[in-house]
């Protein structure tokens, strides 16, 4: 089951560039939360702060408090432990090209030394079913490489890979922006199903997508969070003029 995320006074920098300024919000457990905003507004940086991927860049820096469930991720744990609990799906599908489909899904578990063969088989099957890919790949799980799939299938494979480690939170950084409309709608259906079991945070440029999949939506602009409300309110009756300008297409 997913857990909620509590963010207090989060600030992030790339070098001297102050990319996130005083972010405060509470992301509810077992719901999908969408983050929208123009390019460069800091929404990707924000999700990367939630699993401490931001700091893998040597010039990056973070201050503030992020609580995932009970865990204060910046003081109570090492990045490795957090990333085992917080899955991430990236903008471009990045399956491991040298591994079979099966090994791609099992990668996270094998990495951590999970060796029970039979339960591994079950987990791989369940993860692929959860990511709606099982029917398409079940016959060549170990025969085909992860790179031999189509772009949309690859992204669902990446989702299966993230689900296999049974994360409490699933971060998705524009998961459908490199995909065609059919694949995109499959991914959206998937998010819709998954949000009952996982806390999902999805960054998107597509406002219809946010409206379709998310209960809550945050609008980011220039490194600040302008508004964080129920998706319905953001798209029908935003309280901030800038949010309204953005969603009606007046800038960005």
């Amino acid at each position, binding site marked *: 089951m997913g857990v909620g995320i509590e963010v207090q006074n989060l600030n992030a920098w790339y070098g001297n560039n102050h990319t996130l300024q005083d972010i405060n919000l509470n992301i509810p457990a077992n719901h999908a939360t969408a983050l929208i905003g123009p390019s460069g507004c800091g929404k990707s940086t924000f999700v990367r702060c939630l*699993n401490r*991927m931001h700091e*893998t860049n040597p010039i990056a820096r973070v201050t503030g408090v992020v609580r995932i469930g009970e865990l204060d991720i910046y003081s109570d744990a090492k990045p*490795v*432990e*957090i*990333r*085992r609990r917080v*899955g*991430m799906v*990236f903008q*471009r599908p*990045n*399956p*491991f*090209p*040298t*591994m*079979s*489909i*099966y*090994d791609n899904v*099992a*990668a*996270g578990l*094998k*990495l*951590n030394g999970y060796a029970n063969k039979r339960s591994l088989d079950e987990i791989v099957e369940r993860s692929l079913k959860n990511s709606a890919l099982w029917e398409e790949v079940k016959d060549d799980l*170990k*025969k*085909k*490489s*992860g*790179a*031999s799939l189509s772009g949309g299938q690859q992204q669902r494979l*990446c989702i299966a*890979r*993230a689900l296999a*480690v049974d994360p409490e939170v699933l971060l998705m950084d524009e998961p459908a922006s490199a995909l065609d409309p059919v694949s995109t709608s499959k991914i959206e259906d998937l998010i819709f199903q998954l949000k009952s079991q996982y806390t999902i945070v999805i960054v998107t440029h597509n406002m219809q997508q946010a409206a379709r999949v998310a209960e809550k939506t945050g609008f980011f602009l220039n490194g600040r969070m302008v508004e964080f409300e129920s998706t319905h309110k953001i798209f029908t009756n935003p309280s901030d003029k800038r949010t309204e300008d953005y969603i009606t297409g007046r800038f960005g």
Partner: protein
Amino acid sequence: MHVEVKVPEIRLRQAQTQPEGRSGSEKNPAQAPRDGHSPVRRFLLSRGNSAVADRGFHWLMVLCALSIFGIVALIVWELLKGSHLAWTSFHFEFFYKSYTNTFDGQTSYWDPVNGQFSAVPFIYGTLVSSFLALMIAVPLAVGVAIFLTEMCPRMLRGPLAFLTELLAAIPSIVYGLWAVFELVPLLRVHVNPLLTQYLGWTGLFKDDNPTGLGFVAAAVILAIMILPIISSLTREVMTAVPHSQREAVLALGATRWEMIRMGVLRNARIGIVGGIILGLGRALGETMAVTMVIGNTPEIHKSLLSNGTSMASVLANEFAEAVSDLHRSALIEIGLALFIVTIIVNALAQLLVWAVTRGAPAEAH
């Protein structure tokens, strides 16, 4: 030309934003026709179609490519012609025969005075010293490459990479001199006794050679010589692994080493194999440094600390002083054999690369 073409656009825009200003087109070279053509158009029209130059270039390049075939053919022809006498005397026996010395009953392979010639110890020496060199150089080179691409502070990266490349620029003879005066004494006094003590049970290390020369010395110097080529190729392919692969592994909760193993080395392995092959190619043919430290004894011993010889070093040692036509011909046949061994190694390497490439979904282990 791009600049010339862009100018009118910019001026036009200025003209639009300042309607009261001078008309942009009057001063615009590309839009001021004298004879119906702009200067750019006039210039391009005055150029021919360059067909002659293009065809000349084509044939020049064909000639360059064909010269490779010519050179290889000449080498093979010369080797075949020179080794004809030895070939007619020994046929395939040259590659497996051993002789019994009538004087002391010992096995011998190479006795120019008695006209007994066999390539066995030379092929053995070349292969053993080269593969031993790979065993030392590959882990070291991959380690250097990992450090340089994944963990090295930016400040140190340039100098360290430069030093590694510098190793490749040192002439073979200089390596040989250094090996004779520094490496061999070091091995003799400190390393060989340890090898004998701890690995003597394998039978591969027997400290009965007081000189310190031999396969181990040759392999160490070869390893140093092929280190830069393997490490720079490995570094290159590791740098080419997309950042997204590293992030994918990190996001699964991998430590740095796990990230390197799964996200980088795994993806770069074909290139690494390629680098190892290039290194092996260099090790097989390396002559000078090996000749100076391998001991130059055409014998085969199980111990890697004993003196040996290699195909390239016997050529370097004996060719100028061959005692007979048959001796010279046998040496040329060794040259031919070296040529063939190199081709076989490269073919095997190609097969390996091919196998690695097509076996992409490797079974888990």
